[in-house]
């Protein structure tokens, strides 16, 4: 056992940090805040060039050939830098959507009844017809809400609470995913080469279905036309064929298949893990910001960080961050769905509570638009809603306990 970063992994992380400092420093961040909804395509291509999206594709397919442990390090840095855009969705599409790997194509994905970056994306996975824009709490994440289905469909799509079978997300490596691109693909849509919906991620309930011998049927129906790739979707366009509730419950338990009633597939555990990695990055960053401020801001003739009430807030920031870190890294190594669920809970906590405490340490400055603290808190809130929210993960872990 050597559960520490290898030299290569440390170098990778340092490299990504350097790239993001250079390409998306504070000025770029604040410029992005001032131009909400605009995605910097040049930056996106630079990320593509750096292998951000193709990281886990096999080298034979033009990818970088690395694994989940490397991916979480990269996403941690993205989170730390508050990098905007549908990073997870595009990364997950790298094996199946043309241009995603290089950063040419921006891919968004429906997640429950929300979809981030819908209008800026070239390709959208999942059924998003009729989606209406929200006034997003996070200036760096435009959001649309997908309309609720008719009551009948919603009820039929509900999943019993304990669906927690063992499932390894390692199975959702793109290499393997490309082996069954059919599931859910609507070859007619979007030029056909965009295997849509769950296709790149058999992890999203794919394995349990396959185990049940239902893949053939699944490929015709699962995500069916609903999980279609739409080139340049126009909001309000006629919906794709909506999946009926014929699909057996997903076994991943990481998200209810269609629990939201949209018919969109359960979130891929890998998506949840990469989100947790981004949350970890936020936790790291808010800890840095809080400690920096505590060391330099003086009151009563001493740095406020010399006051124990402040010092202990900072210590707790570190404890939460380091606990989340090992949970995220270990989940990346094992790929186990329960480890991923644990990582997400710990990382959400570290990010959200961390940002809150960071705000507190900043005093009035923390309540301003000008300080970056609120950007971290808001992004952490957005990410904490992904994949059904923490409740799903708690239920999955409870189910594991009782198994």
């Amino acid at each position: 056992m050597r559960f520490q970063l290898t030299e290569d992994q440390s170098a990778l992380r340092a490299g990504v940090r350097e790239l993001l400092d250079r390409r998306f420093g504070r000025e770029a961040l604040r410029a992005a805040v001032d131009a909400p909804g605009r995605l910097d395509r040049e930056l996106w291509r630079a990320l593509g060039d750096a292998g951000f999206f193709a990281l886990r594709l096999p080298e034979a397919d033009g990818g970088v050939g690395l694994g989940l442990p490397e991916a979480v390090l990269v996403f941690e840095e993205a989170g730390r830098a508050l990098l905007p855009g549908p990073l997870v969705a595009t990364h997950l599409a790298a094996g199946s959507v043309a241009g995603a790997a290089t950063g040419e194509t921006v891919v968004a994905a429906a997640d429950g009844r929300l979809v981030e970056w819908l209008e800026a994306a070239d390709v959208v996975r999942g059924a998003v017809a009729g989606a209406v824009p929200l006034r997003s709490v996070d200036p760096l994440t435009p959001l649309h809400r997908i309309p609720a289905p008719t009551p009948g469909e919603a009820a039929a799509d509900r999943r019993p609470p304990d669906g927690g079978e063992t499932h390894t997300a390692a199975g959702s490596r793109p290499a393997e995913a490309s082996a069954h691109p059919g599931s859910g693909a609507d070859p007619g849509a979007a030029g056909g080469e965009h295997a849509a919906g769950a296709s790149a991620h058999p992890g999203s309930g794919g394995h349990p279905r396959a185990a049940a011998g239902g893949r053939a049927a699944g490929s015709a129906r699962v995500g069916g036309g609903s999980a279609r790739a739409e080139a340049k979707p126009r909001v309000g366009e006629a919906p794709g064929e909506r999946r009926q509730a014929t699909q057996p419950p997903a076994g991943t338990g990481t998200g209810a298949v269609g629990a939201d009633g949209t018919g969109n597939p359960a979130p891929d555990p890998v998506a949840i893990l990469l989100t947790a990695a981004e949350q970890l990055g936020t936790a790291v960053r808010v800890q840095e910001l809080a400690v920096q401020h505590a060391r330099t801001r003086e009151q009563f003739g001493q740095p406020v960080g010399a006051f124990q009430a402040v010092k202990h807030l900072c210590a707790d920031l570190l404890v939460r961050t380091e606990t989340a870190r090992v949970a995220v890294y270990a989940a990346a190594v094992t790929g186990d769905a329960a480890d991923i669920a644990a990582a997400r809970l710990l990382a959400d906590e570290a990010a959200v509570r961390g940002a809150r405490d960071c705000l507190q340490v900043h005093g009035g400055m923390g309540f301003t638009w000008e300080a970056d603290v609120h950007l971290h808190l808001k992004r952490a809130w957005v990410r904490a809603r992904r994949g059904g929210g923490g409740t799903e993960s708690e239920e999955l872990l409870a189910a594991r306990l009782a198994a």
Partner: protein
Amino acid sequence: MDLSYTPEEEDFRARLREWLAKVLPTLPPKPSPDDWPARRAYDLGWQRTLYEAGYADVHWDASPTLRLIFLEETERAGAPYVGANFVGLLHAGPTIAAEGTPAQRARWLPPVLRGEEVWCQGFSEPDAGSDLASLRTRAWRDGDDYVVTGSKIWTSHAEVADWCELLVRTDPDAPKHRGITWLAMPMDATGITVRPLRTLAGSAEFAEVFLDEVRVPVANRVGAENDGWRVTMVTLSFERGTAFVGEVVACRRVLAELAVEARRNGRWDDPVLRRRLGRLEAEFRALWRLTQWNVSGAEASGGVPGVGGSVFKLRYSHARQELYDTAAEVLGSDCLDMNRPWVLDRLSSLSYTIAAGTSQIQRNIVAERLLDLPKGR
């Protein structure tokens, strides 16, 4: 990042498992927690069994990873806990191993390994708890002896100990960290009075120890005179190192038992309770990973446990209390019945945020040593 074990490590694990399966059924029944002499005999007997099978020195000589495997497997198999051997194996022993002379190592280490002698830790005093360095128990040189007068408190296992790792003040005029000396005091020396203290759980886990002109040979001093603080820090880093590995494994087992009980008594249907259990499962999974992370870190740094132990202890103490508070929710009104499982553990868990450095002190350590925040006044 690699969570897999080498073939040698897996082999060690397999042989240990096999041995445990053979030996555990032959152990005598566990003694009552109130019967100190029986507890001493039982704990020493277990250490003796380990010694004979070649596992006695796993705490000192084995790599941190083998130690992890040892603690994991013994706990999983339900083997006895270190118990009265705790200070000998995890505090005094490692300190003597690191700082003692060859003669001192030869005198004190083998009896600890063989399960023949029990040690206790005489650090805290009535007026020196968190501020340990302000301790006032005095020692004067008189020929080949130190003469010690003062009092210690919260001394676990004092009633059954043969030796006490004792901190005394040898130079009252020096700055407080510079005038302290580390002594090995025989507990049968004249002038020692042990008065048991009852814990809130009703048991007598620790005691007050009064020292009235107790003579301790100068040869029993480990490290130089007035260098005891540094010597002590070696001990404390061991205390916060791998000491809790077995307990994390045990907590995970308790959590699974709580799920079984909740299903049995119907409380599982309460989603709030169910999710609380799910969250605890996340917590203890993470604590296990943190243990592995710290062990790998120690392996890389040559075996010395680092400040990561404070991070672990903070999080773990809190998680353990949350575990048994949740157990109380699972039990419902039965949580008021001392005969029910987990009720006593709930009481014991209250000491975790106090003993071995309170949570507030751990936060000071994390903030000042890891985050480099200015020292408070």
